[in-house]
């Protein structure tokens, strides 16, 4: 059912609007899942898909007691719908349909989520051997990372976590602040983590593309999780292939009218040649599933 949320916090991080929304009835999301959201007083006809950025639904303060569902979204203002959302203020209402789609865990990228607690969790075992988890984000593709970091927190990633985030400018890179809490929690749980930043204009971090950093450092046994523009995703997959990385998952972005499989508007051509609904088979897909496994000749 479509839910009604209340904006509890609204702030800009660089050019992006960061909304924390209290959503009664929200079931709790996995990282990589999305929701169709629309300002309650909207002049747009359709809702828009946004990655769930963070979800504090399942955090228990004392056993059996839940916070009110509080779900964050990072809104990149690209048109009218996102513009309305970016202009929301505290106490404004939003319509929410979700969580939707296949997140990183359901796609097989990380082990299924264990119940999270506010206390530092007991160490679990990372899936897929000793390789690092390399998270690659481009621009507003940083959105799902706070929830992803929560999921990583509940597992022991022995060889640690490398976050690579690429932006056009230092202004966009201000969005990194949404990772502060998650990275701090990883440190407290003694999960080794590193962050590498690139900007295209060189105004912050390494000057260049995020794929340049990835290319320098990628190891064949790394697991790579990616969220960003399509062109970046395809470029990252090429780097992965070149380094012999087979475990890579991508959160794909397309236009969607419904988000639940009805409209067939969000289809994309995947490696098996079919046009597939990103909202149902994705948005997270394995690299081989989305882009194919042909060896790079370059």
């Amino acid at each position, binding site marked *: *059912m*479509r839910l009604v949320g209340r904006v509890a916090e609204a702030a800009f991080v660089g050019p992006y609007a960061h909304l924390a929304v209290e959503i009664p009835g929200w*079931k709790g999301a996995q990282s990589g899942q999305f929701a*169709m959201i*629309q300002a309650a007083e909207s002049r*747009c*006809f*359709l*809702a828009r898909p946004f990655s769930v950025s963070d979800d504090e639904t399942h955090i228990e303060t004392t056993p059996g007691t839940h916070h009110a569902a509080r779900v964050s979204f990072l809104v990149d203002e690209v048109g*009218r*719908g996102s513009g309305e959302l970016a202009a929301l203020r505290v106490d404004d209402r939003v*319509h929410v*349909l979700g969580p*939707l*789609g296949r997140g990183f865990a359901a796609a097989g990228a990380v082990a299924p989520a264990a119940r999270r607690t506010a206390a530092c969790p007991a160490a679990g075992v990372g899936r897929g051997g000793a390789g690092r988890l390399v998270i690659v984000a481009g621009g507003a593709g940083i959105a799902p990372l706070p929830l992803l970091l929560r999921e990583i927190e509940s597992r022991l990633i022995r060889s640690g976590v490398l976050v690579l985030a690429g932006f056009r400018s230092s202004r966009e890179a201000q969005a990194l602040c949404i990772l502060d809490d998650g990275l701090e929690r990883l440190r407290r749980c003694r999960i080794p983590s590193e962050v590498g930043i690139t900007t295209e204009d060189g105004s912050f971090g390494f000057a260049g593309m995020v794929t340049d950093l990835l290319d320098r450092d990628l190891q064949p046994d790394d697991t790579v999780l990616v969220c960003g523009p399509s062109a970046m995703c395809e470029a990252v997959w090429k780097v992965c292939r070149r380094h012999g990385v087979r475990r890579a998952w991508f959160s794909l972005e397309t*236009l969607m*009218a*419904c*988000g*639940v*499989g*009805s*409209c*067939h*508007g969000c*289809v*994309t051509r995947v490696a098996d040649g*079919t*046009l597939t609904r990103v*909202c*149902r088979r994705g948005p997270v897909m394995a690299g081989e599933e989305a882009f194919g496994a042909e060896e790079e000749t370059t």
Partner: protein
Amino acid sequence: MSSRLHTHLGPMFLEYPVINASGTLDLLETADALGLDGDYRVPVAAYVPKTVTMLPREGNPTPRVAEVAAGMVNSIGLPNEGVKAFVADTLPRLLNLTCPLIVNVAGFSRDEYVSVVERVSRALADELGSDKGTWAPRVGIELNVSCPNVDSGCMSIGTDAEEIARLTQAVRDVWPTPLLLAVKLTPNVTDIASMALAAEEAGASAVSLVNTFKGLIVDRDTLKPYLGGITGGLSGPAIKPLALRCVFEVAAVVDIPIIGMGGIACTQDVVEFMACGASVVAVGAAGFVDPWLPARLAEELEEVLCERSLTLSELIGKIH
């Protein structure tokens, strides 16, 4: 839902007079996407799945949808699994739903429509028994002669009254009375009433109107057509007055029930369509925003009927 809303569509009993427009609600996918278990309450009084064609179809190139003021334009192009997979995989699941089913069929020739309906009939005989009379309350057929997003068949039939009559008659031969046979009409004609009359005289038991209005989106940067299919179909609140006019004109000339649709997004829209002569209404594009809208509108319709001290049958055609 209250008995005040109970109604019939031909041989079908409907708990309330609100259904979905074909292609705008995939109930099975939506339930799965929302994590609903098997016994959820379906949000429609009868369910109309996406158009089925003889062969599987991939649909049109992307982009396929664009939002416009008060609506959207789509060029989806009838992607579907084809009738063979439909009867094997999907139909049995749809027959398990708690509401009647109206299978929407399209073809690229008259024979193709007939073949698809025959295939569905054979599958129904396996599922429900060979006595077609017993199917009538549970399953109907809607002929899509109005999709603007394919090259042949569909709208090329729906813009020609004689073709509509020939097709309706041919399908009636294999899908006999009292089974529900609805013909879904296109508004992209000069005189929609004559199309509806042709369907009625050829044996249709209902007409559905309207499908989308043919439109075009121009890419603001390249100044080329934006949609992969070049043209598309306009739907949403933008078309409501146009659709109301169509229902109004058709209701003046036919006696069979009208399934009214075209931009329905709120209860007042439902009331207006019924006042113009629709016995049943269908939610289309607005269901993309809220899949549970049809049932909610029905609940609100009941309140309106109470407030206005009207029965459903008093509301239907009140404008005339």
